[in-house]
């Protein structure tokens, strides 16, 4: 066992999360039209600030809403901005990094005797998540780039995605119900 410190977990994961969120926000502001750049940038900066405060204070609720706000800012900027798919995998990786590192910084906040095995696995998992997000983001854009999908195929994928989302909602409801009964 190695002695882990609160400052170590926060020092590793906290800045990583805030940096990823800041990068994502900067990219969103840069993508936004000039007229909206200031307001988008201000909203993104506020979200990053909330994220940083949430991590520093150990308030996971703030982290949740900060991440959701960053997603909202990104969506708004993308909607207002010009079309361009190039940076979407990077956005996905940054979002996953901000999500994982932001929550990890709060979860691992309390001082603990941390086993070496856990530390190595945790670092490996975070790295794998970011790499996987890059890959999945790139794969998600692949059909659009190659124009492989057209006609009924996108509709089929949409239906399948909707079914998957419904399944997810049912699973969540079941778990929640079981928890309440127990």
């Amino acid at each position, binding site marked *: *066992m190695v*002695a*882990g410190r609160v400052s170590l977990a926060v020092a590793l994961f906290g800045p990583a999360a805030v940096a990823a969120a800041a990068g994502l926000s900067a990219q969103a502001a840069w993508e936004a039209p000039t007229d909206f750049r200031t307001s988008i940038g201000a909203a993104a900066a506020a979200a990053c600030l909330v994220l940083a405060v949430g991590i520093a204070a150990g308030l*996971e*609720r703030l*982290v*949740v809403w900060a*991440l*959701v706000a960053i*997603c*909202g800012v*990104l*969506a708004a900027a*993308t*909607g207002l901005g010009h*079309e*361009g*798919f190039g940076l*979407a*995998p990077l*956005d*996905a*990786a940054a*979002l*996953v990094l901000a*999500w*994982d590192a932001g*929550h*990890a910084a*709060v*979860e691992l906040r*309390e*001082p*603990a*005797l*941390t*086993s070496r*095995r*856990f530390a190595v*696995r*945790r670092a490996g*998992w975070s790295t794998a*998540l970011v790499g*996987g*997000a890059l890959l*999945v*983001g*790139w*794969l*998600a*854009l692949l059909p*659009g780039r190659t124009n492989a999908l057209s006609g009924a195929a996108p509709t089929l994928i949409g239906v399948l995605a909707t079914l*998957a989302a419904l399944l*997810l909602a049912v*699973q*969540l409801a079941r*778990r*929640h119900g*079981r928890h309440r009964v*127990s």
Partner: protein
Amino acid sequence: MSALPSPRLRSAVFACAVLLLSALGLRRPELVAVAAPLGLLLVIGISRAGAPELTARAELSDLRAVESDEVELTLTLKSPAPVAQLDLRTLLPPGLEPLDDRPLGRMAISADEPCVVRRRYRCRRWGGYVLGVESALVRDRTGLFSYRPQLPARLPLRVYPAADRIRARPSPRRTQLSVGSDVARTKGDGIERAEVRPFVPGDRVRSVNWRTTARRGRPYVNEHHPERNADVVLFIDSFGDDQGWGPEPLDQVVHGAAAIAHAYLERRDRVGVVGFGGVLRWVLPAAGRVQEHRIIDSLIDTRIVSSVAWRDVDVIPSRTLPPHALVLALTPLIDTRTVAALANLRARGFDLAVIEIAPEPHLPPPADDIDRLARRLWALRREQVRARYAAVGMQVVEWRREQPVEAVLAHLREARRWSRVASR
């Protein structure tokens, strides 16, 4: 054990919802690409979620220890499936000092591979404690769900007070019938010579004192005092209140009682304990090493319990106070119930001595003149109780915190030597 949705799950669901709805509303597929990894993680995490089958076993290096000893708790955790993150919090009883600075351990467990967690503690204060797992929190690989498995891995630890060695202890006025180390007042077979008297028919020849016989011209025999054991009852006052008579004086009482019990049991006397307080406890008098363990087990269960119920010696089982027993009371002489009970015991003819635990050193210094006046009145009242006890032939010696218990017992011996003459 049910799955607890974590804030990660909430943030991932909300983020995906915002991005996917925006993608639909704004007709921007790149937002789907941004949301896709999180969505995939949600699907994987939810489909693979399941309660871990974690088992834990606790072992202690010693189930009994003495103050300042070190004990090691070993927790062996095992799971048939890998556990990504386990936050294990161990119990930290107030009388034990952890040598590892953190009670929380964070670890990952491989499938079917035991994970061993060791914690070392230094026993700071006597008492009965429980060591083991306080709580456990398992997070799954994605962190979307957490579980709180019940791990009943707990073991009791009894920490005995480190007792001082006592060489000389007060002797009881009357002894019992069994062989022991106290010189009885009666005459019989023994080593200590009692007197030399003229021979009478029936005396054994080996008792003849040949020197005196030769000098006086008629036979004289030696008479001896036999060595007998004694019954000693430790009367421990554990009445208290939330204001003053708290754990510190109780520490002094328990350490003193343990040392006194050891001193008497070492000399083959029978020792019993009566814990007279909010909770009445007793150990019947007996001799031997086992009895010492019984007494210390009883002592470390002694707690200050506030009580307003009136108690007298009638509530004490009669076998606990055998006839001719020496009753040694350890009390601060604060509670009127104890004061009355001790006077009652003395009136019933028990050989009673009081070791008064001086409460003043355990109190904070007086804040103002009112406090000082109250202390003086209190001291006068206790002085009056002492004088009342002395008048009925009870010896009261004060034990201040800084004094060793042996010095107090030596003082008590001297006091008893003189009071014996006075009480005749």
